[in-house]
């Protein structure tokens, strides 16, 4: 869907991005992460040509973005930014309908779509639709921001630290909501964050950037288990094995069989939950399904990847 080939971005003498190449498959969510100043936001903004390339090329559906008109390119890409950027002089409905109205879609249809989207984002349309952005909380505003980005049903979404301006509890809610949404909407998403936990939670793959280069790009599990170099290891943190375990369900690490005296753990719990219980003094745990029948067993050895 999106293909980056030897992407270079320089401001004067300084090369912010040196040689970036990777591909993003259709329907995939790739997280760009790295220390501040690593060029992750720059890379995102190169994709919809908010800024222009200094070298290399970016292909979207096999077409070089430089050959496309930037305005129509952006109309086909949903864009969510950290500062949300809702238009303060427009109502919530009008905000959500911005791109459909730029595309001159039918007024009635686009209002219907706006209602649907607000509903999907957990905002009651009748209650919020006619309000102005300043009357909403930060978390609610970002929900509207996401609804606005997907209103015209773009195939690609670019999200630049969308959840980092809200408090931790709201952030978690937004992330959970977004994960649920992601399975419904089936979009190719490039997501920038500086929060490793968020990256591990949301990403199909994570791309770690530093000093203008891709340090490693892989699935969260692989990344956490086998960091490619010291930078990646230290960036992911000393607790990366715990993060990895939080990503995998307990059913992935269990052995078949059952332990006669062990207590039980439900199958939808994560391996990290199991570890927590085991460290608390259990020798083994039996994994049970929704009917309370035992489907496997797990002990500390099983958790050592």
């Amino acid at each position, binding site marked *: 869907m999106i293909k980056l080939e030897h992407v270079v971005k320089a401001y004067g003498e300084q090369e912010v991005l040196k040689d970036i190449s990777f591909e993003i498959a259709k329907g995939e969510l790739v997280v760009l992460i790295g220390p501040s100043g690593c060029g992750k936001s720059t890379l995102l903004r190169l994709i919809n040509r908010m800024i222009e390339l200094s070298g290399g090329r970016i292909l979207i559906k096999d077409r070089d973005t430089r050959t496309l008109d930037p305005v129509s*390119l952006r109309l086909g890409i949903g864009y969510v930014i950290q*500062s949300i950027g809702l238009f303060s002089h427009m109502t919530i409905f009008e905000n959500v309908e911005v791109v459909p109205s730029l595309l001159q879609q039918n007024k009635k249809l686009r209002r219907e779509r706006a209602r649907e989207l607000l509903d999907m984002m957990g905002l009651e349309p009748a209650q919020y639709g006619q309000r102005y952005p300043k009357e909403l909380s930060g978390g609610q505003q970002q929900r509207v921001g996401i609804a606005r980005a997907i209103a015209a049903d773009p195939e690609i979404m670019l999200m630049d630290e969308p959840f980092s301006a809200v408090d931790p509890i709201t952030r978690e809610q937004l992330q959970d909501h977004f994960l649920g949404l992601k399975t419904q909407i089936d979009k190719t998403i490039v997501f920038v964050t500086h929060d490793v936990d968020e990256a591990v939670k949301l990403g199909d793959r994570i791309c770690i950037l530093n000093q203008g280069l891709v340090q490693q790009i892989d699935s969260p599990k692989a990344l956490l288990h086998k960091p490619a170099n010291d930078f990646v290891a230290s960036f992911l943190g000393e607790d990366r094995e715990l993060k990895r375990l939080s990503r995998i369900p307990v059913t992935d690490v269990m052995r078949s069989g059952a332990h006669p005296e062990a207590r039980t753990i439900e199958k939808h719990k994560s391996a990290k939950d199991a570890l927590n219980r085991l460290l608390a003094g259990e020798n083994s745990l039996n994994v049970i399904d929704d009917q309370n029948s035992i489907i496997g067993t797990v002990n500390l050895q099983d958790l050592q990847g």
Partner: protein
Amino acid sequence: MRRQGLLLLAAWLGSFWLFAQQSGWKHALSYVASKNQTPIFERNTLWELVWQHLNLCLFSMLLVMIIGLPLALFVTRSYGKPFLGLVSNTVNIGQIFPPTAVLFLFLPIFGFGPTAAIIALFIYGLLPTVRGGLLGLSTIPEDQSNAALGCGMNAWQILWRLEFPQALPSILAGLRTSLILIIATATVAPLVGTGGLGVPIIAGLSTNNVALVLEGALPVALIAVLADMTVRWLEQVLVRWA
């Protein structure tokens, strides 16, 4: 808001009814006039003077809008930026001179008559409108400009859908100040040979006749206050989001 609008309309209609009461004004003003002085300006009725005054203001205000707003727009575009300093300083100069001086400066060019007065009032009233436009158009919240660009608006759409509505409060505030300034300053226009409510004021001042001064000054004050309230009301109606 609707109620306020109706009240304003009633106030305007009431004022015009009041301006039409020539004999009423004569009677009322005779209490302040001394015995051997005329209590009211005889050559024109108050009604005529009010309309002359409003005409002067209307034309200069139109000029202010037609020239001032595009000027502010031009110097806030990327291609007009180099002229920002020039424009902003030039409109400042227009207001440094006292209005009578501006009037007399244009006398040799346009001669006696309404043209000189309108041009002078225009130059004098230009500053607040340009300032308001500059302020509004140059302080668009950056996150919103970014979002507008990112979601695929072209330059024209950004102007009409984002910049203009965002700048509207400042633009209206600027227009309001210009309008009040012009309504008040138009009272010196008779110095270059035009009519308006300045006529009885100047006649009254030169003959030490308080009644004549009041005949001009009271309506000017009333119109200025009402104009101010009307534009404020308009600001409320048009800018409900702020």
